[in-house]
């Protein structure tokens, strides 16, 4: 016995069903930027603390031999390594272009801070705009992480 709808009718029902499931699939949440990453957030906060300690120490040491670049080589190596680890981790996270660029930007700031340190600091005044710049950078990256954490999820 022939079906009430015939072959073309069945094909239409099938097409509508497929379209309906495509619609359902499209109703899953949209992601334009990466998910919040707790490890990145924690490591960045730790790195920011390390930088804050650097500026506190330099404020006390400036004008004394302790503040010389040679005494801070290990510090720069550590900071650059930590930033590199974070950047590599970030590369593995989908849609993380913005955070990757931010980390590269902080790396560049550290490189220039190191160059200035090699040239020598004569007074703490010289360090104030650098400290402010790095504080602003870390605040910006952490602010983005907080916004990623509080986004709407379906």
């Amino acid at each position, binding site marked *: 016995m022939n079906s009430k709808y015939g072959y073309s009718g069945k094909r239409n029902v099938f097409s509508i069903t497929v379209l309906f499931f495509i619609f359902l699939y499209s109703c899953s949440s949209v*992601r*334009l930027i990466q998910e919040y990453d707790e490890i990145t957030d924690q490591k960045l906060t730790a790195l920011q603390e390390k930088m804050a300690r650097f500026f506190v120490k330099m404020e006390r040491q400036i004008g004394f031999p302790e503040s010389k670049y040679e005494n801070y080589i290990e510090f720069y190596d550590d900071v650059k390594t930590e930033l590199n680890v974070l950047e590599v981790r970030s590369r593995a996270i989908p849609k993380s272009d913005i955070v990757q660029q*931010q980390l590269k930007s902080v790396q*560049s700031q550290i490189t220039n801070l190191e160059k200035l340190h090699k*040239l020598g600091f004569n007074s703490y005044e010289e360090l104030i*705009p650098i400290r402010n710049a790095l504080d*602003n950078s870390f605040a910006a990256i952490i*602010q*983005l992480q907080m916004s990623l954490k509080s986004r709407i999820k*379906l």
Partner: protein
Amino acid sequence: MPLTDIDINTLIKEMTEAAKKELKSKWKEVKPFAEQQLKSFAENIKMIAVLKAKGKINEEKARLHLAIQKESARTVLLTIEGIGLIAAENAINAALKVVQTTVNKSIGWALL
């Protein structure tokens, strides 16, 4: 005009207006954060200009200082871009949530 004569308030105002123009509808979400950061950026530029004018830093150092400020501003702008994307994403997902609720309610069980 010497760099030390920079009017900080005018600079902040002009930077804020430029950011506002570019960000358009996203400005509302990022305004408190953006204004604070742009103010700090302008103050740092002024500080560097004063250090150079007083002879406390030479040209080489001033260039490195400015490069740091430029990268810092870039980091801040990237956050503003990211917050804008999250705002757009939130708007889309809030709309989808309405669809989800309506569909689930109409069929009587959680299909979506």
